[in-house]
């Protein structure tokens, strides 16, 4: 059983615990934050982390509480990376499975489009898209989503190519099943494992991408916090007040690590070769 194997797999379990921690933080942030994350407080500029003042992660150059901003920013980061990954996965997988199943000329055209997207470095591509679309929150989702399309297209196409040689596909064709039926009923369920693993790895990279865009001033716009723009504004005061950079950076690293562990663990757990055992 998968839940039992999950419990036995330390890597996946660690990943799940980390990701759940973030989700708890987000849920809490809906109802309670230690301070207002956007209110400027001129009396407490760049305060060191201290329990006495209540600013346990310190304050930034506008006197805003870093912990509150990280908590608020975690919602933004997580929602953006989830939506972007979902978008990339939906479009990429659709392209990939049709290319793989139809083959021939279709395959050639679809995959060449994917290759063109793939040819640009991901951050550069995201910046390019943002420059065209303008700096809006949902445009960040689109920019990051586009980056993922070719990755998902490639992975799902490769998986389809190997699964479609199975004779059960021929059996379904000989029963008059349509291409859509074969693709979505027989083939897609059999390639879900690599796609799920890729999703969890993509989530971690999109956290980084979102942070990078915000860092460059193209993502979430101040005063609304995101981990990326927190780092960006910390640049100027980092030497004076290192906590302004350390805590948001730590929030990014920790979540990226969580998603990566989850992806690695899932890959082991969902490996069909282990299916008969345990």
């Amino acid at each position, binding site marked *: 059983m998968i839940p039992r194997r999950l419990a036995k797999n330390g890597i996946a379990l660690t990943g799940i615990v980390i990701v759940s921690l973030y989700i708890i933080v987000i849920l809490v942030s809906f109802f309670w934050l230690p301070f207002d994350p956007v209110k400027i407080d001129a009396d407490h500029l760049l305060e060191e982390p201290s329990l006495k003042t209540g600013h346990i992660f310190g304050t930034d150059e506008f006197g805003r509480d870093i912990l509150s901003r990280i908590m608020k920013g975690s919602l933004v980061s997580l929602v953006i990376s989830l939506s972007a990954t979902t978008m990339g996965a939906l479009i990429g997988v659709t392209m990939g499975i049709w290319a793989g199943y139809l083959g021939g000329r279709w395959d050639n055209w679809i995959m060449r489009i994917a290759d063109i997207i793939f040819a640009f470095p991901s951050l550069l591509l995201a910046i390019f898209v943002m420059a065209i679309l303008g700096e809006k929150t949902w445009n960040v989702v689109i920019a990051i989503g586009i980056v993922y399309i070719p990755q998902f297209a490639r992975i799902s196409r490769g998986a389809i190519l190997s699964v479609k040689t199975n004779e059960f596909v021929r059996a379904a064709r000989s029963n008059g099943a349509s291409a859509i039926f074969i693709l979505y009923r027989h083939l897609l369920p059999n390639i879900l494992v690599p796609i799920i693993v890729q999703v969890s790895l993509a989530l971690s990279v999109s956290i980084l991408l979102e942070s990078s865009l915000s860092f460059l001033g193209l993502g979430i716009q101040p005063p609304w916090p995101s981990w990326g723009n927190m780092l960006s504004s910390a640049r100027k005061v980092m030497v004076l007040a290192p906590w302004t950079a350390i805590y948001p950076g730590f929030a990014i690293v920790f979540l990226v690590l969580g998603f990566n562990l989850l992806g690695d663990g899932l890959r082991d757990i969902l490996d069909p070769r*282990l299916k*008969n*055992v*345990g």
Partner: protein
Amino acid sequence: MAITTNVEAILRVEGLVTGFRTGGGLVRAVEEVSFELHRGEILGIVGESGSGKSVTNLSILRLVQCPPGEVSAGRVLYGGKDLLSASEEEVRLVRGRNISMIFQDPLTSLNPVIKVGKQIAEAIRLHHGAKRREADARAVDMLRLIGIPDAERRASDYPHQFSGGMRQRVMIAMALSCDPEILIADEPTTALDVTIQAQILDLIRNLSAQSGTAVILVTHDLGVVAGMCDSVCVMYAGRIVERATVDDLFYDPLHPYTRGLLDSIPRTDSTGKERLYSIPGSPPNLVDLPEACPFQPRCPKAQEACARERPPEVTMAGRAPRTVRCWLHAGEDHHVS
């Protein structure tokens, strides 16, 4: 050739036990397997998938992956030494030089990026320490010997330029290049077509007759056994259930499994179209086998004793290597201990 007991065996396997640890438990792949091999003899090991016939041979040369595999008991006596307790270095010297192996899939057994002649020459240099030039010449000789036309030119071809049958010939050339005493052929013709199979079997038979190399031929095809072997071990669920000369086995099978197997093969030399016999059920799961005869659930002659206890290996009177593991013959033991 006729086998007589007074010829000294060159390989003697005694009470071999090999198991694999898996998530589901201990798989007893080989259980108390004993047999001997004489000079120039072709010994067949037949059985269905999972009967332990391949693992037996891998165990002999200590090629079982460990873990999860483990050879936990038995002796393999070759050249006055027990290969199972010998040092890794000693066994390595035996492999390839004295005992060679060929496998089912000739494509994956050859290195795709090295020329065929080089691969054979390397095997020769490795075991004989021959000079490069000498080894190259001998490789071409070997290719010629195994019937590859235009051997000089073909020696500088890569494996993918050879057909399946040709590749298997190359494997045989490599295996025989060091004049081994024993050749272990594990399903050497299973991946090949019948007409090519006939060529390869013919080649093995002739080479064995010429050089006196003893052959252990692992196969699932009783027809191949009938045409090639002097004596046969029939394996089921990790055990040798019957061991006999080829004539005894085909004309007077003792174990119900052997009999069932012989009756269930369609044959081109049958006269009528009588319905084939089929052994009911499927082979047992080798994890946690009960203390019973493993064939008992499928056996038409099963008795009460069969479900209670494993049958002992009974040595039958008469021509040399005749043993059977079956309660039907338990009272006929002529073994003199």
